């Protein structure tokens, strides 16, 4: 192998940094198409990272995961979202519950939190990708944050998918990927979920006239009482 481990670790760290940047960019993005582009970019970096790790660590099943990520998260899912937004005439800007600067600050807090949480794992790991584990968990957390702070069903879904990206990234950096059968199963679940939220968007927009989930507040306990 002509790449030393140190160089390899540097390359994966660089790609991990790019993934984290896309995460934060998604938090700050105000336009829905921009959000989808960023999501596709994140998928691309992930696929690239997986392929690099697969090549250096000589794990061939990672190439399959990488191709799967490329197909699913860079092309298919963004395409589905694109079409849905066009068809349903969804509002093109992102509505937030918490304002952007605060969200960004919480995001930074989450990264520090992830750093501490993954400390025991990093100490025990001997893999060259161990330093990227923090970023992987941070991506999961930021995805979660995005789901909580957005009001639109489409942005919630993008948050959900970003979180799934983070989980995939975690598997790659902690263990050089899960066994192939599990990776394939997870991809299948994501695909089914994609069809389900597609159907959902239609139902929600025909029933509520918009995809603002803030309108969905009929099932509150208080209202049930009085």
């Amino acid at each position: 192998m002509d790449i030393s481990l140190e160089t390899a670790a540097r390359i994966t760290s660089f790609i991990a940094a790019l993934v984290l940047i896309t995460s934060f960019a998604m938090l700050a993005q105000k336009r829905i198409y921009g959000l989808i582009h960023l999501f596709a970019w994140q998928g691309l970096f992930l696929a690239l990272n997986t392929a690099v790790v697969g090549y250096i660590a000589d794990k061939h099943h990672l190439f399959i995961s990488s191709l799967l990520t490329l197909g699913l998260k860079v092309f298919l899912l963004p395409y589905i979202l694109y079409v849905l937004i066009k068809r349903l005439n969804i509002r093109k800007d992102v509505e937030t519950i918490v304002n952007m600067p605060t969200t960004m600050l919480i995001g930074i807090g989450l990264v520090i939190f992830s750093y501490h949480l993954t400390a025991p794992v990093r100490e025990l790991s001997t893999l060259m990708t161990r330093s990227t584990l923090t970023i992987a968990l941070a991506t999961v957390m930021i995805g979660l944050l995005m789901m909580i702070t957005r009001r639109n069903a489409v942005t919630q879904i993008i948050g959900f998918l970003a979180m799934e990206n983070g989980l995939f990234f975690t598997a790659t950096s902690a263990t050089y990927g899960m066994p192939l059968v599990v990776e394939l199963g997870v991809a299948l679940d994501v695909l089914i979920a994609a069809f389900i939220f597609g159907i959902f968007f239609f139902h929600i927009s025909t029933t509520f006239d918009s995809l603002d989930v803030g309108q969905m507040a009929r099932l509150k306990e208080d209202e049930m009482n009085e």
Partner: protein
Amino acid sequence: MNNSDMLLILLGLPVASAVVLAFVGDRKFAPEINISGSAATFIAGIALAIEVYMHGPMLAGGKFFFVDAFNIYLAVLTSFVSVTTALFSRRYMRREREHGRVGQVGMRFYHAMFQLFIFAMLLCLLTNNVGILWISMELATLTTVLLVSLYRTPTAIEAAWKYFILCGVGIAQALFGTVLLYFAAEKVLGEGGDALLWTNLSRVSGQLEPTILSLAFVFLMVGYGTKVGLVPLHNWLPDAHSEGPTPISAVLSGLLLNIALYALVRCKVLVDGSTQTHYAGDIMMVFGILSILVAAFSILRQKDIKRMFSYSSIEHMGIATFAFGLGGPIATFGALLHMLMHSLTKSAIFFTAGHASQMHRTQEMDKIRGLFKGKPLVGWGLMLGVMALAGLPPFGIFTSEFLILTATIQEAPLWTPFLLLGLAVAFAALFRAVQPMVSGDVPDYQKPLKVAHLPVILHMTIVLIIGLYIPDFLNQWFKTAVELLK
């Protein structure tokens, strides 16, 4: 016939039924196909159970499947409740169709997804791979999301969306936990699929790194705990269970919660083996007791009949989680029995609640009156069901709650008052709500209708029999499972 074939038949039958039902669609005989498909699955389940009873735990399909005393009784239970639910749903869904709440497409979808849901749950139970366990759990969620929104009312869509998002987030945490588990296992077992097999993991659990497994358990607890409906992760449950069609409420409350708890307990065994402390158990006890208390007080405030019984499901899953957390032979035996009894009782109650709300065309408890006079089977079914659910003897839940309470008093006396408070409040709240519904005169808007007798009678009879006497095979399975979960 060898073991692998038996398992493939058991798992293949619901998939085949789903395909057939997808093609049959809304034809007249679709419910009958649904029933026969479930019945065939049930027979295959019984055959497998006899095999396990005679020859002990088995591995099959190249170690991909694993059947032991713990999962076989849940598999039989799952296939059994799927038969009775299919029986119940035949008339029920036909009537919903007449009322115009579901269309042609809806019915096709309903039947096919029902079978796929059964498949996902059986796969979850029988797989030996912790990764596949996660995948099939997610699949079980995905198959039911659109069933919850089957009526397409705003509230149903809202409930389904909540279910989809919250369970998606929850289950994502469980995947993170699974990755950490694999990370720890890989060091001992080497790379590849073998490191995720539960049988291998439990063999070497003493060598797994305790810090990693403790961290993993937090994520697994949050993830699978969301699906069990434990407080404070329970927000989706009352909505999803009350807005969907009643047969789906019955299987969600009766079966899916059990499956999620099963996954959690399997993971707990590994964590216990690694840490050699009561760490995982303590976490489960806190979540359990919190669920019991919050759910018991929430039952008091409910106006919707299905919603009230959903909260009661949270309470009962809390009891089982608490008991598994407490550990020890008596509490674990009680928890296993409790899962079985709650599942049968709760689905029976949902059947009668479904009938009651169809007779009155509403789920509001204020409007449901005079069931004893109007339709004795529904009235008595509801009354006896609630008696069983509240833990009155001679029903089976009394036995399991008694065991759990005894174990608590012996081993963790400080928790006893909380447990008792929860049980007492739930008891009072349920009776306060049910009493006016069953007694009194028949209101003029109550419409008499033909009901499915068999499912309710079957479930309640089993609950009664087990309350009086636990059959030998069940006793032996539970004892083996207790050994296994030590």
